[in-house]
């Protein structure tokens, strides 16, 4: 297929429930309506499929440079495309850390070359994620990577003064600080949610207050300096209440939840299977329900995967020796469907908002504000919501297999992903790097 070949999507159901044909040509939505035709175009029969704007992940670990045994920009991009994502934000905790213009430009250009998904680097807030000095935020913002999201994710910017300065400083460049909210002293050696179960299992507890206290401090700092704050992967019912309070006071805060926190709870830790070890940890079932409700209500703005690939040996070991993290790109949409769509709490329009429109807005990513309108960049994901499958490693497309969903039945299946007019997934299968790479300038 040449880059100029057009794509005709027939009979897709849009998030608002209407069915339409979409003609994709030269990377944009060229026509929209019923009974469209175009000679020479590739046709996708989308009857019964749900069309979503291309999904945008605000929280992805691509591991390159430095940890290529876990994931690379290419392998992570493929996992993203397979999961229906057309843009990911690559976290800064690589080696070297993404704290200079050089590193972020390299990561962005690798993404551009491979073409499976738009790769937007996240810049580190502090040099080396060390929490001591601000990194070159301005240089990264003004680089070709045009970084807008800054985060020390994996670590919390726990120093209150440094956090204040960071919030103030990024305003200059229209950026946002995405905070990994974890009070470090309260979570020294922490292994799982603190409570009766952690006590029983003899695992050091990660108390909810260690997250909630940082969020409370940060929203007050954001208010004080009039800056934008984004809260990564919030995981407790108490955090929801703090965000609700902050929003009611007009503080410019956005919040994200990871898919696994919408579906899995701490009881899964009981077998000491390290695939369930993640940071922040799986919480109580009450927290899971509160997070779902807050997402449906809009208190939580977005879902972001926190896709965290790890080599097998860091999970095949005793729990407290294992790494934190789960891969999530391939499963995010199915997990969201299982957690909040199939239960009727959220519509597909809501899904489009929390997995595409809103994360793009927070990341200042253009081209996602008016999806499916003629002239808009053609970032489209087609899902078969009626499909059900037992999840297995063969469905993963990244380099690592640390998924908590093995053997679990999940609904929904990504049938096609179109990134800037180029199909990256067709008939549920990833297209080859050669088919994808050459199409993107």
């Amino acid at each position, binding site marked *: 297929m040449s880059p100029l070949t057009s794509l005709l999507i027939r009979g897709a159901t849009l998030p608002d429930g209407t069915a339409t044909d979409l003609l994709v040509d030269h990377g944009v939505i060229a026509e929209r309506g019923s009974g469209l035709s175009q000679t020479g175009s590739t046709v996708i029969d989308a009857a019964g499929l749900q069309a979503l704007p291309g999904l945008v992940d605000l929280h992805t670990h691509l591991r390159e440079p430095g940890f290529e045994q876990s994931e690379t920009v290419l392998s992570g991009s493929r996992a993203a495309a397979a999961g229906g994502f057309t843009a990911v934000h690559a976290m800064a905790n690589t080696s070297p850390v993404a704290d200079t213009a050089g590193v972020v430009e390299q990561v962005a250009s690798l993404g551009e070359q491979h073409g499976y998904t738009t790769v937007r680097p996240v810049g580190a807030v502090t040099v080396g994620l060390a929490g001591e000095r601000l990194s070159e935020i301005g240089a990264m913002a003004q680089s070709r990577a045009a970084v807008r999201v800054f985060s020390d994710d994996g670590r919390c910017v726990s120093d209150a003064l440094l956090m204040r300065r960071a919030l103030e400083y990024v305003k200059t460049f229209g950026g946002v600080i995405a905070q990994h909210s974890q009070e470090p002293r309260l979570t020294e050696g922490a*292994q799982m949610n*603190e*409570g*009766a*179960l*952690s*006590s*029983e*299992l*003899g*695992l*050091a*507890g990660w*108390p909810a207050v260690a997250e909630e206290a940082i969020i409370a401090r940060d929203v007050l700092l954001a208010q004080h300096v009039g800056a934008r704050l984004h809260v990564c992967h919030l995981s407790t019912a108490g955090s929801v209440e703090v965000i609700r309070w902050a929003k009611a006071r007009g503080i410019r805060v956005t919040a994200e939840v990871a898919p696994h926190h919408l579906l899995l709870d701490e009881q899964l830790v009981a*077998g*000491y*299977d*390290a695939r369930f070890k993640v940071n922040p940890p799986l919480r109580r079932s009450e927290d899971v329900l509160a997070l779902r409700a807050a997402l449906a209500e809009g208190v939580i703005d977005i879902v972001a995967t926190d896709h965290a690939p790890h080599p097998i*040996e860091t999970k*095949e*070991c*005793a*729990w*407290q*020796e294992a790494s934190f993290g789960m891969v999530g790109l391939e499963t995010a949409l199915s997990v969201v469907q299982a957690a909040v769509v199939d239960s009727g709490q959220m519509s597909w329009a809501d899904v489009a908002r929390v997995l595409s429109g809103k994360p793009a807005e927070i990341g200042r990513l253009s081209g996602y504000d008016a999806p499916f309108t003629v002239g808009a960049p053609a970032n489209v994901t087609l899902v078969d919501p009626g499909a059900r499958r037992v999840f297995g490693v063969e469905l993963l497309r990244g380099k690592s297999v640390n998924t908590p969903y093995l053997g679990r039945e999940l609904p929904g299946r990504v049938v096609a992903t179109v990134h800037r007019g180029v199909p990256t997934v067709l008939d549920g299968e990833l297209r080859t790097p050669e088919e994808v790479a050459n199409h993107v300038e």
Partner: protein
Amino acid sequence: MRHLLSVRDLDRGAAVGILDLAEDMADVATRAVPRLPTLRGRTVANLFFEDSTRTRLSFEAAAKRLSADVITFSAKGSSVSKGESLKDTAQTIAAMGIDAVVLRHPASGAARVLADGQWIDAAVINAGDGMHEHPTQGLLDAFTMRKAVHGTASRGTGLDGLRVTIVGDILHSRVARSNIWLLKTLGASVHLVGPETLLPAGVGAWPVTSGTDLDDALAGKPDVVMMLRVQGERMHAAYFPNEREYSRQWGLDDARLARLAPDTMVMHPGPMNRGLEISSAAADSARSLVLDQVANGVSIRMAVLYLVLSGSEGRGAV
């Protein structure tokens, strides 16, 4: 019994069965030849990722009394100390044809991970995993209490109605956890006492009562007072101000000892910090069962080794 990972896997019948079997094993120790040929030709590996001379020697004595061969890998002076993973060490010993692994590991759940991983066929006996459990310690403590209560009529009995107070650093204690679950299974009631900082989060959801006042607890005339070892490093992590204050509030000192009923059992899993959580007079008093605990440890471990190693052939097909 395939493995012994947690006392929670034992129902009352199984727990009483182990205690009864240990009675038989204890009889062996009194004979002219304190050795049984039962496990001749079987090999037990003591895999100690953490130093514990007492537990290791106790398992070694138990295995030898049953005529098993014993291989010991301990933290010092072996590959275990060089950061080798549990999986690699397990596969190494599996290649040597080991029938049972006695595992001591600083990580909670390590024994479970070893048993659930498909790396080895050997039976796994948890000899202490992090802050989680120390099942043979719980069993030997229950055995010691039962013997003290029922004497030679112990067989078949539980610990119904026995009131046990466990004092000290419950939070970090695998001994406390194994005792709590097993004592409940056997019908005893358990009361925990310690500073609020050393009582586990969510202890209210456990099938125990808890409090912070040792004198109150002792005034309730418990049948058993079990003192836990306090580790010096806890002080530096701000769990309590200093040893003097700890000892004054939660130590079994001579004054508290004098107030105990004459038949109150005083227990301690060892090693003791004399003068901190327990005074020398308390440790050496007639009420103290500390040395019985040590002796009974061998009998319990013989019983457990027998149970995991008998009927073990042909398991591959299961």
